[in-house]
């Protein structure tokens, strides 16, 4: 997928200045999600749950080869066809080939960030397959031709009025419809599509190695229909989604829902155990699982970034993030936005491609407190910043300024002198000429230095 990550600062600035309604929608929705998440965490011993989940994921990631082998065996024993995709192109080819072999004309999709990551929809459309997103948020965005703005709530940046206008225009619904009426209008289109689709495409929240089970969490029922009505079901699953045992899944289903939406568990949990075996049975005739790497083994090999592979894609860190809240996800220029995007994207895409995301954080730490698998996002951001410095990916002025600070700060005499000069110049226009303060002063009044430094007060005696 072509990214626009390098344009982050300009696009974020643009969003804040010219799209106040985006900031309003995103702020309102994320604060509400975050409040629910906090409440749901306090109902249980969240700290204990999170430590357990971290340990299970770490164990799985350090034995990933074994669990992938086991999962493949169990999936095949269940009658599921297993495919391995090293990168996005392979994953797209696998799905288009399955579609071609199955004489697929139309496909319905459940929400899947991985399919966004590999640009699946355009590839299917290019071979003449009609693809319909069935998650309500994704459906809205498909009508608008926009990428998702949030891992969990892809249309989080849209207001109710914008959806009203869109549906009135495209579906002929009432221009003043309430959310239920809008959902009903979409349901009318989607139900028909479910019944006629040849193929259902989903991601996978978890893949249980010991049973070969693909687990899917949702609230709308569209994934249940996507995985059960069409003849062919294809689940694209990142290789980091493995869990060793069914008992682990029981814990993760609850933790994920609490982190994502504050629910004790998702309204629908689908456990995919293979195709229909007897004539007349419910379910698809063919089930395919595509295990996708696309940079994940590189991340796993990274000394620090591998921790980001614990990610459950719950979106809790986005909801908790005051930086994300100002712009929504589009400014980040890639499917994984917010705090997790800022630490995962450099690993998946390469640091150069993902600049300046490691710097798009005030390091406030709210993401870590929200993360159900305790990914140390602030520490990982710092690791990426160190690598960016080592690779010379930061502005030379900034490097020079910090080197200068260190030189001054390790020489007390010089430091004191610089402080006195700063105090004399600080209140004047001269300060604006400094590279750092000039930028700062565009939107803030410059701070006024104390007339005398503390050092001077101390020397004179504090009473």
């Amino acid at each position: 997928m072509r990214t626009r990550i390098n344009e982050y600062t300009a696009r974020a600035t643009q969003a804040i200045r010219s799209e106040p309604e985006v900031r309003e929608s995103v702020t309102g929705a994320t604060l509400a999600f975050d409040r629910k998440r906090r409440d749901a965490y306090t109902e249980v011993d969240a700290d204990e749950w999170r430590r357990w989940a971290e340990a299970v994921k770490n164990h799985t990631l350090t034995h990933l080869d074994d669990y992938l082998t086991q999962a493949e065996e169990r999936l095949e024993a269940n009658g599921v066809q297993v495919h391995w995709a090293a990168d996005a192109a392979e994953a797209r080819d696998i799905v288009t080939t399955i579609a071609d072999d199955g004489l697929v004309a139309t496909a319905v999709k459940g929400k899947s960030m991985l399919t966004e990551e590999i640009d699946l929809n355009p590839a299917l459309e290019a071979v003449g397959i009609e693809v319909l997103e069935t998650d309500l948020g994704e459906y809205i965005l498909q009508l608008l031709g926009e990428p998702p703005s949030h891992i969990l709530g892809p249309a989080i940046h849209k207001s109710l009025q914008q959806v009203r206008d869109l549906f009135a225009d495209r579906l002929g619904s009432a221009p003043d419809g309430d959310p239920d009426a809008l959902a009903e209008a979409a349901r009318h289109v989607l139900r028909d599509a479910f019944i006629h689709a040849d193929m259902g495409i989903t991601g996978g929240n978890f893949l249980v190695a010991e049973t070969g089970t693909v687990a899917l969490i949702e609230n709308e029922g569209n994934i249940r229909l996507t995985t059960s009505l069409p003849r062919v079901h294809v689940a694209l699953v990142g290789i980091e989604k493995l869990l060793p045992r069914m008992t682990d899944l029981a814990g993760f289903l609850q933790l994920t829902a609490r982190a994502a939406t504050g629910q004790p568990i998702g309204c629908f949990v689908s456990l995919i155990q293979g195709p229909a075996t007897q004539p007349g049975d419910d379910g698809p005739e063919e089930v395919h699982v595509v295990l996708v790497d696309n940079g994940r083994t590189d991340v796993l090999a990274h000394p620090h970034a591998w921790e980001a592979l614990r990610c459950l894609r719950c979106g809790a860190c986005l909801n908790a993030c005051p930086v994300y809240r100002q712009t929504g996800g589009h400014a980040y220029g890639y499917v994984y936005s917010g705090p997790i995007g800022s630490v995962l994207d450099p690993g998946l895409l390469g640091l150069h491609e993902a600049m300046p995301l490691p710097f798009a954080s005030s390091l406030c730490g709210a993401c870590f407190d929200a993360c159900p698998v305790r990914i140390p996002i602030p520490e990982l951001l710092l690791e990426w910043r160190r690598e960016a410095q080592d690779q010379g990916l930061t502005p030379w002025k900034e490097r020079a300024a910090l080197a200068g600070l260190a030189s001054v700060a390790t020489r007390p005499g010089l430091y004191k002198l610089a402080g006195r000069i700063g105090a004399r110049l600080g209140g004047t226009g001269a300060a604006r000429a400094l590279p750092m303060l000039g930028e700062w002063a565009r939107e803030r009044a410059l701070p006024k230095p104390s007339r005398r430094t503390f050092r001077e007060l101390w020397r004179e005696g504090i009473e």
Partner: protein
Amino acid sequence: MNVALFVTCLADHYFADSAADAVRLLRHLGCTVTFPDAQTCCGQPAYNAGRNPEAVRMARHTIEVFEGADAVIVPSGSCATMVKKFYPRLVGEATALADRTWELGEFIVHRLGVTALGDGLAGRRVAIHQGCHALRELRLESEPEVLLEGAGAEVVPWEADDECCGFGGLFSVKMSAVSAAMADRKLDTLPPVDWVVSGDGGCVLHLKGRSRARRLGIEFVHLATALWRGVAGDGGTTARKLAAPLAQPAAAPAARDR
């Protein structure tokens, strides 16, 4: 009790009066305050930018300066976090200093065991801005409220009190518009109060800078100054008169289980 003040570069140059109030407050609570003259900057700007070699040099310098101090008091949650949490990641021998370093409010509540500071702030309505590092790295949540209420102030709930103000040092320069929007979220949700109080000068510089640019007329007060006004009776002139240190040490402090 002998304590060394690590004033921090920001307070030295921008909050000199508040740092002086911290000294007055500590003396009032029975401490003998020293000020090691060779102290400079903790190095957090370099650390947060990913410039570890520079951060290590500044950490080593600070560790050397405060060698031998019984307790080091920092009137900033962020700089205290640098010493207590980040130095040990950078420099092996930093643990000894980390264990002896306290954020000002943390020291008063947990080391000195003091929460009653008179009623000099009676009638004051204040909102607290929680600095992110104090809150989420040092896990200091209730301390500012306990102390301000202990000085008679009314702490007014603020829905965004625990949200980041958007400063983040270099972040506010590199991503200036995002950072300013974060400050706006704070300022726009602020209930009517006399003061916004924070134990972190960096946050105050940022919020105040944004507030002044928008001509909002909000008054920001450093925690040290707020508490000292509480002790000394409200208003600066009384404060100066009462500044003489008390002879007796404060009630025997309960060592905090950490």
